[in-house]
């Protein structure tokens, strides 16, 4: 059978075919955009931090004991805590820092390059002891890690050594080597010298500064409490998690501890996206089922309505295969018409969605995949009713109603 007469016959029954085409068009638009959103979300969720997230535990310590009013005592406890955590069996490294990965925020500031004019750069800023890079599993790319000498620098002094992330170095000094350069925050009297550049670093933030970070060698402990990041050896996470509180309570028990694995924090951070991905998957599956049911329904109706015509065609010499082919071609034409409109709709919906959701423009691969999927879906859904049509006996042609 050729397309010509099928097409001409379809033009006499526009309403129903337009219905299916519209359904296919909308389905294509929804499915491709849903897939686009899912892929964007997954890319975001799979984006590496550059740290050994799966081995990290965050330990928050909140003091309530009177003894912590004494600054000297706080310092002693922090040192003792650090020592105890590092010596725990299964612990690879630990750092006293106020940085927590995957919280969706942190602390930030605006810096200016010394002698670099008024331009300001916003970056995340965190205090940390020298153990931070080993704990996070972040590599020093240039220069050196912060060390004990940086850590013991006079807190009242006017110059500190710091380490910055590779992307921040590149942002501040796109042409030159950042090593040895210095910058300041609001006070030009206090400058910070870059002694090390590390990477990779990514920590999502409310502002688009996820890749930019400065680590200062400062203590961030005060009477109210302090925080550690602990890196367990592979496979030791649970054991370490269980033993931390005991080890720290032994040093001072008048404080409360809140432990959470970084994996857990990360899961929490992504839970919104996770739920969206699951919901969109559900919506897509149900939508495809509904569309398939719609095509099955309309084709069945079409077959029932055209039984006599099918009998006549059979009497005039159509084989069963001819009948099946007729319905498949008819559906294919409708689907094709639908996907052409659907591609335009998909693009329109995409630009609409991009006004509410951050994401990428719909990739052509997704559209091609969607078109192929709907072609298959259409043919698959038509096959059942078409086979039923092929079973219409040719003798039906001579029955007079």
């Amino acid at each position, binding site marked *: 059978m050729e397309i010509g007469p099928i097409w001409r016959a379809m033009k006499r029954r526009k*309403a*129903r075919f337009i*219905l*299916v085409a*519209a*359904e296919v068009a*909308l*389905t294509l*638009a*929804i499915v491709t*955009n*849903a897939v686009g*959103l899912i892929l964007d*979300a997954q890319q975001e969720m799979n984006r590496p931090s550059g740290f050994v997230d799966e081995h990290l535990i965050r330990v928050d310590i*909140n003091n*309530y004991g009177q003894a912590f009013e004494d600054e000297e005592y706080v310092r002693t406890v922090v040192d003792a805590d650090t020592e105890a955590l590092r010596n725990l069996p299964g612990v690879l490294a630990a750092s006293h820092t106020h940085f927590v990965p995957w919280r969706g*925020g942190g602390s930030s500031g*605006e810096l200016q390059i010394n002698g670099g004019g*008024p331009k*300001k750069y*916003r970056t995340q800023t965190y205090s940390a002891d020298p153990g931070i890079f080993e704990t996070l599993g972040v590599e020093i790319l240039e220069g050196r890690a912060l060390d004990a000498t940086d850590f013991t620098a006079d807190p009242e002094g006017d110059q500190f050594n710091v380490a910055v992330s590779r992307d921040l170095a590149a942002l501040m000094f796109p042409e030159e080597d950042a090593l040895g350069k210095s910058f300041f*925050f*609001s*006070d030009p009297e206090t400058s910070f010298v870059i002694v090390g550049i590390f990477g990779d670093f990514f920590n999502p933030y409310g*502002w688009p500064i996820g890749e930019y970070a400065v680590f200062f060698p400062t203590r961030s402990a005060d009477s*109210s409490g302090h925080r550690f990041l602990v890196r367990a050896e592979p496979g030791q996470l649970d054991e370490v998690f269980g033993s931390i509180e005991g080890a720290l309570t032994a040093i001072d028990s008048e404080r*409360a501890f*809140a432990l959470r694995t970084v994996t857990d924090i990360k899961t*929490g951070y992504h*839970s*919104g*996206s*996770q*739920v*969206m991905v*699951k*919901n*969109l998957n*559900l*919506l897509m599956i*149900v*939508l495809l089922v*509904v*569309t398939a*049911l*719609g095509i099955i*329904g*309309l084709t*069945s*109706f079409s077959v*029932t*309505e055209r039984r006599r015509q099918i009998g006549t065609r059979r009497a005039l010499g159509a084989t069963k295969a001819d009948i099946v082919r007729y319905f498949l071609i008819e559906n294919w034409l409708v689907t094709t018409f639908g996907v052409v409109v659907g591609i335009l709709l998909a693009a329109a*919906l995409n630009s*609409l*969605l991009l006004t*509410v*959701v*951050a994401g990428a423009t719909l990739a052509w691969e997704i559209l091609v995949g969607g078109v192929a999927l709907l072609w298959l879906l259409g043919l698959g859904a038509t096959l059942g009713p078409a086979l039923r049509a092929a079973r219409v006996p040719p003798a039906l042609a001579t029955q007079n*109603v």
Partner: protein
Amino acid sequence: MLRYNVWLAWKSVRRTSKLSALIILGIALGVGISTAAIGLYRFFSGDPIPHKSDVLYSVRIDSWDPEARAPHTGGIPTQLTYRDTQAMLASDIPSHRAAMFKSDLYIFPQEADQRPFLETVRVTSSDFFTLFDVPFAYGGPWNRQADAQVEAVAVIDQELNDRLFGGGDSVGKTFRIVQQEFRVIGVIDTWRPKVKYYDMTQSPFMPLEHVFIPFSHLEPMELRTSGNSDGWQSNPTEGTFGDQLQISETCFIQMWVQLDDKETLASFQSFVDAYTNEQRKLGRLERPNDNRLTTVVDLMKEWEAVPEQASAMAALAILFLVVCSLNLIGLFLGKFLARAPIVGIRRALGASRRSIFIQHIVESELIGLLGGTLGLGLAALQLRWMESQLQRQVGIDGFFDLDGQIVLVALMLSLISGLVAGIYPAWRICRIAPAQHLKMQ
């Protein structure tokens, strides 16, 4: 006649039970998924205090760096500095006014065997409770005098009341916050706005606080915020805590006022502008005046309280419902036209086109309602599932509970999709000529 039509529709549904079940399932899926998505969207975007959201205003002042705009979405800081807050609290123009921030503090229960625990405390003015219509189970809020005299009184919620005192009327009982003994003056009844609209600075969905104490404790207790603090200058280090607070440019305080009419709004706006003009003369607030009084709903928009995912899902789900309706047009067309001979007889027996049309619309609406009811169940299941997925982030039980409005939305959607899907097929069937199908019998 309607009863007759409903009876006919019911008979038809029963007779073609398989096809009807398919159609009902189709409507149920469409209504279910779109109701869940619209419900989700509405939870996030709905006006949390509809009866007075038009008189509640957040107060913001552009106190940022003279040389740069604030990096916040609105281009001005989202919070106030302590000294600007003091000036705002001094105005008598608003009928109610409250400054606030939150602080993580240790609570020491009276029972010696209970360990102290960390709790997020909202440090705020007495008007907080009147501004936001907080219901009380026992006692009530403290008064302005308690604010002024730094009285050690606290309002707690039922959950903390249970934890500290085992529930009941605990007004007058005491517990310790850090070093200070506080007396319970009121216990809040169930109060859980879905969006924490009075402080969206970290997230519009942070859990509500369980303890509230007077704002004036900030200085003597040397309280620090556990929320966001935004600064463009290093914090002062000289002098006492109070001295530092007085000159600090760090923004960490949210402020709300109630302005009951347009005149009050205008006069408070000019009061704020006059204040910033005055400060400019003193060498502060060098940026041009950009002081904003923003309603709850507008502020929620600015904070993008609706997660972008929820908007995207709502958009897709509505299109999904359209597909379902298109689908149903086809199924109804099949269902109705299969019955053409019978309709021919009815027409021959004197049924008018109009009555045939109505008969079929009634049938599609009946099916729509059946589907919608089932869909509502599906929506409830889906929302429950989403809540279990989001429990940790949202932190509040029953956040996604169906309410009357959602039920109404679902019923509306099912009626609309029943109508949309039924109109064309009903029109087609009512145009069957009376004789056409009789002849062939």
